């Protein structure tokens, strides 16, 4: 056997070993080939290392989860600017400050990737995440916050309904409207009026709620607190320990589980019991789920209408699919299905809603849509987790032949629709996805009418860019991918999506602005 033969033989046997198809005689042969031979060992180790990397890569976050499990504390806080981000973000789903961390890390990555305007923050400014809302009424506020959004420091006013805030310190507050709070930091808030229930796990010990008359320093517990319009307040400790300090920081009193205290114009009075009429987390979840089920029915009605529309080519609703399904079911009878590659099943816009998570550069859903078209609409519910690269795919045809469509987003948050026709292909919106939108569900859509030349980009049911183009060729799709791109040749960079999708529509007509608004409304997770 020559040197090369030996090495080739090692490659073959190693490959069989890794695929668990090696016979006993061959495995003994491999053993002998490796004995005392640095060169064959090197070959063997190279192959196994690539194999391990591929396994690791395809397992996504599965392995790192195991590290997270052994850390004795929740991980929170932001990566220092300029520091290399952790290779993966394992703690997110497991630990208490999950939402906060994910948002911060994503925000950080986003800003790192984008061309920064000097003076703009390096991370998403904010002190908490709005993790749950039930019938929230924000009054006259011009820009009402939505579930999943980061809440900045400052005034937080809720007219009615319930809102759950998860502070980056780890503390959670359920706020019952009407309430007015000042969020000073992730460690300290001021309650001017309203009713709160606070959950302060170990790492958030020391979380402070100020009332007009005292500061409640939480020493690791659960308690409720209310402040009336006249400044009178009541605090009830459900469990654990709360220390009340006066304005000068001197201790007034320490309360334990079951203790209650009423305070009015400086007069303190013990009250027993009480506090049970505050909404706790379980009740909030139940209420939120009830709200979801009403929305779910509304969404279902719209979905059925779209499924029955003869111009519908593709309607993936990601519903009622099993975690092991590797095919996306098209709700449009007779329409193409998509093969799921890599992407994993996860939760969508509301509890119980199915979605696919596109995370690794190999994740994608592939489909084939035959035919040529004069008009097309694409619409999807998407949750962007971060902009990993210059372009991220929403929907790209393989390659980019004449008439083929590319729908993608840039790391500046622009929506881009490309039609290959020899000229400049792209219709680009202004940036419409901002750092604060990461981790939040949004409805993105684009319509094309090649006869009038009209191309419209939508975000959340509203037109964000309109352009009339001339001389567009007949549109076609053919082989295409959701969340990734098969370029022709190898010089084109990766365009994989980092995020989730839980609804995807393609129609052979241009949806009107009214229709688009109504599809957005019916599917909106925020009611």
């Amino acid at each position, binding site marked *: 056997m020559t040197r090369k033969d030996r090495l080739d033989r090692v490659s073959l046997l190693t490959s069989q070993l890794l695929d668990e198809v090696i016979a006993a005689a061959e495995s003994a042969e491999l053993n002998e080939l490796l004995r005392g031979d640095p060169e064959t060992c090197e070959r063997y180790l190279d192959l196994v290392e690539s194999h391990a990397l591929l396994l690791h890569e395809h397992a996504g976050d599965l392995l790192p989860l195991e590290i997270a499990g052994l*850390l004795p504390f929740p991980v929170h806080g932001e990566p220092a600017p300029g520091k290399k981000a952790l290779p993966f973000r394992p703690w997110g789903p497991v630990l208490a400050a999950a939402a906060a961390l994910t948002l911060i890390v994503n925000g950080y990555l986003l800003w790192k990737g984008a061309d920064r305007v000097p003076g703009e923050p390096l991370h998403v400014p904010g002190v908490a995440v709005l993790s749950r809302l039930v019938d929230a009424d924000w009054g006259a506020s011009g820009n009402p916050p939505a579930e999943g959004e980061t809440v900045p420091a400052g005034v937080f006013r809720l007219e009615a309904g319930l809102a759950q805030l998860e502070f980056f310190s780890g503390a959670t507050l359920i706020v019952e409207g009407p309430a007015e709070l000042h969020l000073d930091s992730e460690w300290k808030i001021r309650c001017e009026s309203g009713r709160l229930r606070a959950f302060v796990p170990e790492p958030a010990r020391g979380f402070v709620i100020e009332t007009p008359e005292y500061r409640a320093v939480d020493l690791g517990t659960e308690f409720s607190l209310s402040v009336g319009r006249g400044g009178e307040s009541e605090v009830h400790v459900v469990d654990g320990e709360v220390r009340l300090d006066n304005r000068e920081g001197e201790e007034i009193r320490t309360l334990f589980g079951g203790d209650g205290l009423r305070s009015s114009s400086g007069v303190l009075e013990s009250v027993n019991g009480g506090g049970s009429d505050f909404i706790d987390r379980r009740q909030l979840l139940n209420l939120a789920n009830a709200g979801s089920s009403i929305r779910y029915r509304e969404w279902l009605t719209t979905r059925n209408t779209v499924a029955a529309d003869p111009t519908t080519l593709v309607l993936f609703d990601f519903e009622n699919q099993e975690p092991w399904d590797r095919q996306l079911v098209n709700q449009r009878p007779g329409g193409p299905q998509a093969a799921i590659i890599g992407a994993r099943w996860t939760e969508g816009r509301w509890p119980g809603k199915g979605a696919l998570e596109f995370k690794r550069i190999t994740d994608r859903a592939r489909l084939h849509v035959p035919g040529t078209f004069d008009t097309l609409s694409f619409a999807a519910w998407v949750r962007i987790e971060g902009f990993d690269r210059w372009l991220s795919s929403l929907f790209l045809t393989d390659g980019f032949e004449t008439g083929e469509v590319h729908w993608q987003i840039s790391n500046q948050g622009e929506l881009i629709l490309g039609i290959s026709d020899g000229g400049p292909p792209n219709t680009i919106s202004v940036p419409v996805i901002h750092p604060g939108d990461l981790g939040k569900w949004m409805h993105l859509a684009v319509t094309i009418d090649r006869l009038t030349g009209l191309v419209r980009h939508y975000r959340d049911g509203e037109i964000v860019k309109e352009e009339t183009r001339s001389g567009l060729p007949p549109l076609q799709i053919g082989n295409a991918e959701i969340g990734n791109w098969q370029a022709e040749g190898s010089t084109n960079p990766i365009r994989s999506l980092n995020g989730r999708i839980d609804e995807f529509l393609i129609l052979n007509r241009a949806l009107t602005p009214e229709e688009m608004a109504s599809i957005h409304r019916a599917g909106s997770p925020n009611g």
Partner: protein
Amino acid sequence: MQRDTESFIELLTGAQSAVFGYAMSLCHDPSLAKDILQETNLTLWRKAGDFEEGTNFTAWACRTAYFHVLNQRRKQSREQLVFDEDVFDYLAERQESRSPDTEDRLEALRACLRTLPPQQRDLIDRRYLPGASVQDIAKDDGKSEGAISQALFRIRAALQKCVEHKMMKEGTA
């Protein structure tokens, strides 16, 4: 969080691929290798204080993993073992002396994956799906296990060549 805890986590996280690969090379069973990785992580975490800053973390992690592999090996029956003791120890030794360039290798591997023809790329994707096996792929495609294994061997050989080429190019650049 304390500064050194944070940097320790970073080191630990960064060494995951390397330790997993190391365990795979000695026991070549993904689920065993995962167990070993987990045990190794636990040991490293407990012994975090023993780590001397500035020394090679991955090498330390692999030495720790070695003992866990050895433990696993003792639990296995003679029939399950592919390598005899000499070869096993020799491999462990060779592995330790390898350069800690897992990250570069991963980069190269990703780039090489993209150069594969779609069919080969697809086969790799299916092979490395969590829980996938050559047996299942053979059944799905109506082909023999030998045929699938042979196809995978060719792809691995091509990838290997490509990775080596890239690593060499970068090494001299």
